[in-house]
């Protein structure tokens, strides 16, 4: 696969990732993770820079990824239900081990999330970046590890919906 084809495939993957969350198609979002082995974390830049391990949100298994959105879908959590728009930019892709047959990809991208309330008032919600490891499962890319490192770690009100 040429580098440009790879770049286009990964960008399409990220756009689907963002759209599935924006559109609250949470089952589709979960389907982007490797059910055999995956993690999802939201990390603050402050902790990352200090070498401190605690995440803001941490899912260490496929089940935990499912639970995060199940609690929203089943109405367990009382949270501010804004419309979110995720903008993904500056997508960079490299092969984890270019010399070997391992198809794992390391992906970095910029993220901006806008929030809009029920009366149509929008504001900036989150600035950060995706750091992702994709793995090839049966010819399909799935997320092995996802870290969303947020610069906006002074989080506006709450973080209920994954980024």
């Amino acid at each position, binding site marked *: 696969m040429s580098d440009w084809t790879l770049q286009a495939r990964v960008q399409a993957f990220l756009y689907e990732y963002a759209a599935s969350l924006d559109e609250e198609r949470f089952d589709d979002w979960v389907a982007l993770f490797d059910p055999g082995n995956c993690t999802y974390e*939201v990390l*603050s830049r*402050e*902790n990352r820079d*200090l070498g*401190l*391990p*605690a*995440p*803001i*949100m*941490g*899912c*260490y*298994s*496929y*089940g*935990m990824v*499912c*639970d995060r959105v*199940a*609690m929203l879908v*089943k*109405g*367990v*959590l*009382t*949270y*501010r239900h804004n419309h979110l728009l995720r903008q993904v930019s500056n997508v960079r892709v490299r092969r984890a081990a270019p010399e070997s047959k391992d198809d794992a990809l390391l992906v970095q991208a910029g993220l901006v999330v806008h929030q809009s309330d029920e009366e149509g008032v929008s504001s900036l919600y989150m600035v950060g970046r995706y750091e992702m490891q994709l793995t090839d499962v049966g010819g399909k890319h799935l997320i092995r590890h996802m870290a969303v490192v947020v610069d906006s*770690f*002074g*989080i*506006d*009100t*709450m*973080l*209920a919906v994954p980024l």
Partner: protein
Amino acid sequence: MLKVPADEPSTPWPRDDFSRVPYAVFTDEDIYRLENQRIFRGPVWNYLCHEIELPKAGDFVTTWVGETHVITARNNDGAVHAFENSCAHRGAKLTSAVRGNAKRLTCPYHLWTYSLEGDLRAVTFQHGVGGKGGMPAGFEKKDHGLNKLRVAIHGGLVFGTFSDDTPTLEEYLGPHSISQIDRLLVQRKPKVLGYLRQRIPGNWKLYNENVRDPYHGSLLHQFQVSFGLQQPTMRGGIKLDRDLKNTWNHSIVTEQDAASQKIVADAYAGTGKFNPDLKMADPALTKVPLDLGDNYKTTILSMFPTLILAQVDNTYAIRHLRPKGPGLVELHITYLGFESDTLQQTQDKLLTVNFIGPAGYISLEDGEALRLVQEGIRHRRPGGHEVLEMGGVGPIVDTDYLSQEISIRGFWSFYHQIMGLPAAGHPETRP
């Protein structure tokens, strides 16, 4: 001529048991300014940091006391000092860093230099250049130090006060606070696992109410109820200090039996909120054992004005409130593990952090509750009061039950006193 009716009733505190609280305290700019003067610069101990954040000489952290930016530093003798982050010369901020290490603090503007005790050590060109200019002969560096706070430490918690009238720290905290600080921060040496910050669009006192309000625990937080972390049937209660300003809420592990499930189901009947069949795909989070082994499920120690030391299940955290105007507060959380933790116990805490903070299955809802209250009171007609009668009115006392708002009334009783507000209670409006 049209007469404009007054917005506020003449006595905004109609009951002397503080079962009514005027909504204006959450929105009024003048009250907010008065709080900075009478509370944060008044006779209280303000939380600054934990000593573990200052392990070496020269280490400093910055924090907020009300809206005052404060530097807390460890000097070469190991002593901890605190002072305002504002140069004595022209007022510039000395540092924009949240934390760091420095031999001295130099103002970027004219390079005036201060010791780690906050004393002025050097004034550039004090004696002029080439015999010309310079400060006048009477200028004494000792008269131009940074504005200092008095510092006291208990259980590693570093506090500062601007007032000479503040009682000793031990007296101010009271015996319940002391014993809980010892339980959570002294019997094991804490370490920082991370910081969590949440900017909640609500007044800082709404959060003080929230942490003194065990009534909401099993109602707002359905996750807790669904997975047995908190039940309205749990044993527990509150203890207050003698000023009623500091509260210790606690609940104790109990078996979930059929009777307690029925009480929960009845309480939630018709609300559409209770889901007894809710399951997690990976319930590891709810299976982490309590590593203190003393059967306390939740303990919330709330210390006036802005410090909370909280154990929620197997999470341990210092929560600090940083007001940013009447309608906004930063909740700053120092999330703790312990030096003695095994690798497994550390991993457990990186899992249970999902209970708390801005994304916490439990805590994220408190941010939303505060937002809803602030929005609600901003858009209602002027005047009006909170109704705090759950658990009883009248005397403000310790309880051995959780469905109560008595400890909230304790907070207001002390707040009212320290703010020097006109006496509460109209004879005709007393209960």
